[in-house]
């Protein structure tokens, strides 16, 4: 129980730090760091999504950029149509563009969830290394689809001129936008906690540990894993929508397989199956990018070396190093 409280303390510290950074930056008038903090929060949110599938369900998805990107495109495309005053779809039903934040988020959740249901339904028929390669391949398919469709900018992507609007809040204010991202991040962590602690979560974790056992007591692993995969994708998809809003730009790069790898890195750096791990992972990633990137263009070389070191020698991730072994009950 000592370890438990130590991890909780650590978690509170992480959440507090992420909140303190932009507040400090705001006080000092350094608005750049506010957007850096927003980026951390958004990428961490994507990691929280993946963690649900990977950390708790044992599904090593190497294609989560697909859901991040789809969420981003869903929001970006609707926003683009709202700016143009055109409809996304006229037949069989009319779907107009929208600049309502809630509508954009809903679209991101819906699209990433639906596609995850299809990709998951096929991929979860397999396991192990097949699953890794297939999720990667499907993500690549969506990447190429985005590249080859000229309607939304193809390879070059699409600038978005419209900030979406949330009733009562001004999202074009950097700090407000950060609070929204941060709030969604904490909400997603809270929802993950509830989900993992629930009956469904118990079955999901058993699926990771021992599928034969799960089947033998009469719970089919497939629907459990598929459901978790869809939830996982939706969270990551929402992060994509926020990312697009942050950048005011949507392009196939948010679908690239490097991003899938990076989202995985956030989860691993922080510690697989740790609820707050993705924040640490994403923060560390951004810090490395910023700090090493400040000295040398070759920061990815050092990132690679550090990551390799973590994988080979520090398997519990950072929280594992600092807060002890994961607690299981």
């Amino acid at each position, binding site marked *: 129980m000592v370890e438990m409280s130590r991890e909780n303390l650590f978690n509170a510290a992480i959440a507090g730090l992420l909140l303190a950074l932009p507040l400090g930056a705001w006080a000092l008038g350094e608005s750049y760091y506010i957007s850096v903090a927003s980026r951390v929060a958004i990428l961490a949110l994507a990691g929280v999504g993946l963690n649900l599938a*990977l950390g708790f369900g044992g599904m*090593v998805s*190497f294609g989560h950029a697909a859901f991040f990107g789809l969420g981003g495109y869903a929001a970006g495309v609707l926003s683009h149509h709202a700016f143009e005053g055109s409809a996304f779809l006229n037949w069989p039903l009319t779907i107009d563009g929208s600049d309502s934040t809630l509508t954009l988020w809903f679209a991101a959740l819906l699209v990433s969830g639906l596609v995850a249901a299809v990709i998951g339904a*096929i991929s979860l*028929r*397999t396991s*192990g*290394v*097949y699953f*890794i*390669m*297939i999720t*990667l*391949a*499907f993500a*690549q*398919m969506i990447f*190429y*689809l985005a*590249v*080859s*469709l*000229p*309607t939304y900018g193809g390879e070059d992507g699409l600038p978005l001129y419209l900030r979406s609007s949330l009733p009562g809040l001004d999202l074009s204010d950097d700090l407000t936008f950060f609070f929204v991202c941060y709030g969604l991040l904490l909400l997603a962590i809270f929802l993950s906690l509830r989900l993992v602690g629930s009956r469904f979560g118990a079955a999901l974790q058993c699926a990771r540990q021992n599928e034969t056992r799960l089947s033998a007591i009469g719970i089919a692993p497939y629907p459990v894993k598929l459901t978790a995969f869809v939830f996982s994708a939706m969270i990551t998809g929402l992060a994509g929508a926020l990312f697009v809003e942050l950048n005011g730009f949507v392009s196939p790069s948010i679908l690239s*397989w490097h991003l899938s*790898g990076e989202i*995985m*890195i956030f989860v*691993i750096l922080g510690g*697989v199956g740790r609820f707050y791990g993705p924040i640490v992972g994403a923060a560390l990633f951004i810090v490395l990018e910023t700090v090493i990137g400040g000295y040398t263009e*070759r920061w*990815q*070389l050092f*990132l*690679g*070396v550090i*990551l*390799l070191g973590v*994988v*080979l020698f520090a*398997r519990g991730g950072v929280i594992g190093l600092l807060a002890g072994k994961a607690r299981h009950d």
Partner: protein
Amino acid sequence: MSAAFIFEQLLNSLQLGVMLFVMAAGLTLVFGVMGLINLAHGSLYMVGAFFCAWVAGETGSFWVGLGAGLVAAAAAGAMVEMLVMRRLYDRDHLDQVLATFSLILIFNEGTRWVFGAQPLYLDIPSALATSVPLPGGGGYPLYRLVIIAFGIATAAGLYLLISRTRLGMQIRAGESDREMIGALGVDINTLYTLVFAIGAMLAGLAGALVGALQSVEVGMGEPVLILAFVVIVIGGIGSIKGALIGAILVGLVDTLGRAFLHKLFALALPPAEANGYGAALASMAIYLLMATVLAWRPKGLFPVNG
């Protein structure tokens, strides 16, 4: 649409197919023997291409360059195996994915460091920079035919290596039973390094040969790597025969999809839209092929170990 055009597209399919096979064979061999998923296989492809282009540029001989590319890729592979992979055989696939993903970052930046950020260009050897007439009119670049020949030779060579040699016997033993290799009195470490180096050399071969058709640049191995994944997923991971069939299938579907799908759409749609949809569908075609195969056979066409 002339018969010559169709024939040309078939040859293109075959050329893509055999190169994918050379790439996928290494991946599937390493997985079959060591149980390792290696994302950095694309980096070895890149290493082969860069060294080939560099040495060919210095010496003026493509063939010397090709030899250098093969040696460099095999050496890089052996080094990576001894320094990193060896520690990963007992780990789960997640660790393997991350470690080899880190290697990609290291290889990409390292290559940029050594060779600079500009792409290199590798010229086709002048003796091969010609085309041969195709039956039905038109010509086909001789160099591409040579690539096809290299691919077929590799397939035949691998077949002989695995079915006829002592090393092949050890590889087959390793696929079915790791303990048995020990019982055969083989040093497992040496065998694994050797297998990995062979796989790396094949990747380097593909990289060097294809490098002459496009620019040699950082990251060039990654799209090919993912295609090779699709190939071995379709063929059955660990199966060389599956890799061959899968590679040919993917080569056909991808090339023919790009060549003909938009024409098919043009029968029903205005040209601009037909081109758009045709290109979109063509880019998805091999993944749809993969999904179809998996829906039918979740372990690929030639599943290994049942």
